[in-house]
């Protein structure tokens, strides 16, 4: 049972909610009332949790699942292969909703469909070898690249949450050429240095590529640095009416380059919109181009070490530091609107809350309030997670220069393939993890993801088994020369003919609702204050939209308060300040976690902590 001291972090911060007799505890030690109840631990909910808790409001944060993140979750190999994320918390599937004048229900939404997995290499040895290193895997359900100037980075820095996180730079962006040269992979030069050293571009191509980039950057280039947070605000789009195609025409960029730039900045949504490369695409290009050089010269993108779930957990941690209470695997059965808020029935107890925020996994249907389906347009994304052996997808020679092993992003025939080696902490040494994402424009399509992926990626990786000889060969060379990067250099000659071998593959469809602009599900207007049920449901490949969503919900609930002001450095004397800190170099896990997970009561879910991963990294 939790005592007061257990839950309360010893930060001595004046914002931590005062526990007085006004807020008595229930049977399992949970206080009887909270300001806000949040359900779901995706990124929007986590940011909100941190922002609300940070300002001294009490937060009860539940997730019916047994892990953090929802679709932002990250899994070890055993969790992955046992399909943890497919388990629908059955008890939570319906929660009754009694509102003032209507009734309704919350239903559980499962986003993963048609999951299929198979081992391409059937020999048990490889399998057990992988399984013995299962905790060295950090497999994202939905991998996310973060552009260095996206709002989320700014928020991580200003809120000081960045101290819980570590990022890697994406070493390169590559693409295959349009048909008939779809087998040829070329790296996409976007920074000045890359364009300058590129050997695949002619002089005139270099000139027109730079011109295109300059044209894309032009409208707001001077404003960018001063107000990085404003760059992606939708209103700004109107300042330039030129579409990407306009600029391409204006700068006379040859098709090859157009393809390269397009494929670098395409996101999943573009795959669904008929005029994908519109004005908004332009403003996204601008954001990405401005991101290049902030943390290194190669690409605009950063990758969260240990998986994207870390981002959610970092915000949850900040929330917990300020007194937010987290419980995983906790369901709701009944929500009832009352005079001054809601009474919420969970499995074990009843709490009173002022506001409720529902994550995207909760579908809310209110009788009489017909939210038409069209508002809830959803995107279906094809996904594949492949584990390969035998080096990297063959890259053009010029990439030998930045010996940047690590993470490479390929845009192959409309698919995004993120290839990671062990440096990403997503896969053990000698293996590669391929995270494949692609749009499925017709959700009714019967073609399984597996056949789509196998067809489109077969020029680059080997799905069927090599002859025994080949395997022996590449395994032999790999193990003979210690360090990974060395072995790669020494085997480049043989790799020219041998494609990486897929050992394991899993395929599924992931559904998320697209770009829903409204948040308010229900408002109970009172004399002094309103009580809300909000949904943080939003689906996008762009993190920016999740951040904006969190901000907008926050400002509805607390219109006069600052959103995530900088948290004081209680444990790090020389902590980061301002804009100039290279988040990629920030220390990984803090040495003395603010909240020691062991002292927190078992009913209260574990505060997210990197120690687990560190432990895994220390093995073997």
């Amino acid at each position, binding site marked *: 049972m939790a005592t007061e001291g257990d839950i309360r972090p010893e930060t001595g911060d004046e914002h931590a909610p005062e526990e007085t007799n006004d807020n008595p505890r229930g049977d399992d030690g949970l206080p009887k009332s909270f300001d806000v109840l949040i359900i779901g631990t995706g990124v929007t909910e986590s940011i909100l949790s941190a922002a609300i808790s940070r300002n001294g409001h009490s937060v009860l944060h539940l997730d019916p699942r047994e892990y953090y993140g929802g679709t932002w979750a990250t899994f070890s190999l055993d969790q992955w292969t046992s399909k943890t994320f497919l388990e629908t918390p059955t008890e939570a599937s319906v929660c009754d909703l009694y509102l003032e004048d209507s009734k309704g229900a919350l239903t559980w939404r499962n986003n993963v469909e048609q999951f299929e997995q198979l081992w391409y290499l059937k020999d048990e040895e490889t399998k057990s070898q992988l399984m013995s290193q299962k905790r060295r895997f950090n497999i994202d359900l939905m991998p996310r690249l973060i552009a260095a100037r996206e709002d989320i980075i700014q928020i991580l820095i200003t809120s000081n949450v960045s101290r819980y996180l570590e990022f890697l730079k994406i070493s390169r962006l590559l693409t295959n050429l349009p048909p008939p040269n779809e087998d040829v992979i070329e790296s996409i030069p976007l920074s*000045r240095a890359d364009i*300058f*050293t590129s050997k695949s571009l002619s*002089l005139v191509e270099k*000139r027109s590529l*730079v011109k295109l980039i300059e044209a894309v950057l032009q409208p707001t280039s001077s404003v960018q640095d001063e107000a990085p947070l404003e760059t992606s605000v939708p209103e700004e789009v109107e300042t330039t009416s030129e579409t990407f195609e306009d600029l391409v025409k204006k700068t006379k960029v040859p098709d090859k380059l157009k393809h390269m730039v397009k494929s670098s900045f395409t996101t999943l949504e573009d795959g669904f919109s008929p005029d994908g490369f519109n004005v908004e695409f332009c403003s996204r290009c601008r954001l990405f181009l401005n991101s290049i050089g902030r943390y290194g010269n190669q690409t605009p993108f950063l990758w969260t070490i240990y998986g994207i779930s870390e981002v959610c957990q970092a915000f949850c941690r900040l929330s917990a530091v300020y007194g937010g209470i987290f419980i995983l695997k906790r369901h709701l059965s009944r929500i009832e609107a009352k005079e001054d808020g809601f009474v919420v029935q969970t499995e074990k107890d009843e709490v009173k809350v002022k506001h409720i925020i529902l994550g995207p996994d909760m579908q809310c249907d209110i009788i009489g309030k017909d939210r038409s389906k069209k508002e809830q347009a959803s995107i279906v994304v094809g996904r594949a997670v492949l584990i390969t052996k035998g080096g990297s997808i063959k890259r053009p020679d010029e990439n030998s220069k930045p010996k940047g092993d690590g993470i490479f992003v390929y845009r192959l025939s409309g698919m995004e393939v993120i290839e990671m080696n062990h440096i990403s902490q997503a896969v053990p040494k000698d293996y590669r993890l391929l995270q494949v994402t692609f749009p499925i424009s017709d959700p009714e399509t019967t073609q399984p993801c597996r056949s789509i992926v196998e067809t489109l990626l077969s020029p680059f990786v080997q799905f069927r088994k090599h002859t025994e000889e080949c395997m022996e060969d590449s395994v032999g060379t790999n193990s003979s020369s210690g360090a990974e990067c060395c072995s790669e250099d020494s085997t480049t000659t043989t790799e020219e003919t041998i494609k990486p071998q897929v050992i394991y593959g899993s395929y599924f469809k992931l559904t998320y609702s697209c770009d829903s602009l409204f948040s308010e599900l229900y408002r109970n207007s009172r004399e002094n204050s309103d009580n809300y049920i909000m949904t943080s449901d939003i689906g996008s490949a762009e993190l920016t939209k999740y951040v904006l969503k969190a901000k907008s919900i926050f400002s509805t609930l607390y219109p006069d308060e600052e959103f995530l002001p900088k948290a004081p450095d209680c444990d790090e004397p020389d902590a980061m300040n301002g*804009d*100039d800190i290279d988040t990629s170099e920030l220390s990984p896990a803090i040495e003395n976690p603010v909240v020691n997970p062991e002292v927190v009561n078992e009913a209260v879910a574990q505060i997210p902590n990197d120690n687990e991963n560190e432990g895994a990294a220390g093995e073997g």
Partner: protein
Amino acid sequence: MHGRQKKERTAEEEAAKEKERCKKVAAYRYAMGLILSKREKKELDEELLKITGQVLASNPDISTLWNIRKEVLTVLKETDFTNFSDVVVQKELDFSEFCLKSNPKSYGAWHHRVWLMRETNFSKVTSELKLCAKYLEYDDRNFHCWDYRRYLVENCSEVTLEQEFDFTTEKISSNFSNFSSWHLRSKILPKLPRDFLDEELELIRNAVFTDPKDQSAWFYHRWLLRSQLPTESPYLIAAQYSFTRLILTFSSKAPTPSQLGVKVVGTDKKIEGIKWTNPWSNTCSKLWECELQDENKNISVQADSSSMMRNFGNMPLSMKIGDIMRNFPNYFDTETEEKNDKLLNLLKEEIAWVQELQELEPDVKWPICTLIMLMRMVDFVGYKQSILTHLDSLMKLDSKRVNYYLDLRSKYLIEWKLVECSNTNTHGLDELLLDLSGLNLTALYYPERMCFHTKIDLSNNALKNCEPFRALVNCKELNLSGNELPKSKLKKTIKGLENLKIEC
């Protein structure tokens, strides 16, 4: 290092800072007193090293202390050389690096390293190069570090030029806008025993096509092509002997003729004690004159090296009073000098691609500047019209430097006029009229070539500077009307010129 925002301090912080500062000043005063008294007493020992070290550690910019350290080190070196080179030097290098950590741009700390290198005959040069690489990784605009690296490259034979060359390649690849890397490259290239020209031009092309507005590669290009031109020491192109005055004109700016090995021999023996002067009292000049003390009917101008007299048949130049001997070349500098076919073809190829880029980017000035240079190199007379057109567009594009372009234009116009003049007037010197009127000249170039003209028309120009007129020693009629020359200055300047009729 760069582009960081200044943090505002609160009054409280400011006060704390002030208190801290007072404490520091007291400690500093005490330590300095100690150091200076120790030095006074000639106690140049390890303890002195220690105290100076303590002060320098908090402020590495006190050069006095670094110098005192050097005094101590010199003593230590004399007393125990092995210990000095094995232990002390490494300690000093470590200490200097410690100072660099707090201030990577400390003059004293970098200079100390230079001194240590010299004292130890560059024995630790390899690790020093690594240190430079590290500091340039932190900040590739740290010119102290670039200077130090260049010092090592230029002074230590152990530095492998090929490796240095690769280092600059790497640095240029990561940021081609940093001229420091190109500069170091330009110091290494001439020493490399291989042909690098094509490679370098390719590199430059890649840089300027990527960003034609970036001047680094263009400057390097200019240096590279100019380095292909033959270097020429000045030689005699004209001489004039009138009574006791001898005037010599050289192909390029030269120190005094005596320094160049030019002798004047009188009727029988060398005339000693000649005092050479030039109208502007400069240390180097194309024009030198002297008054010969004794009257010599015939003199002979001779030189130690025969190339000095190459325009006069490599022979001593015999002159009698009243002689004017001249053999002006039909070019003005190494750029306009005639070139061999290989170089000429290369330059023509250069013109081709720069022109291509210029057409792509008509609003960028560097391709145009480069084209003008290249055209001057290939055929400065033939390209007259193109050069003028390009100068016009430069003045429009780059209006801040319009006066510079006007001066360039004046220079080229005078060149063309002089060439034209020498082509039409091959003989007959007396009634030489040089007509430079109405050309909108802003400056008078090559006055040394005009010192033989008796009639010069400079009317209706925009001349502002009177100084060049000092060279017009033979001019009888000088038309300066329609210029904006300051009258008072003009009078002073041309006081020495006799028989001068000036129309203003």
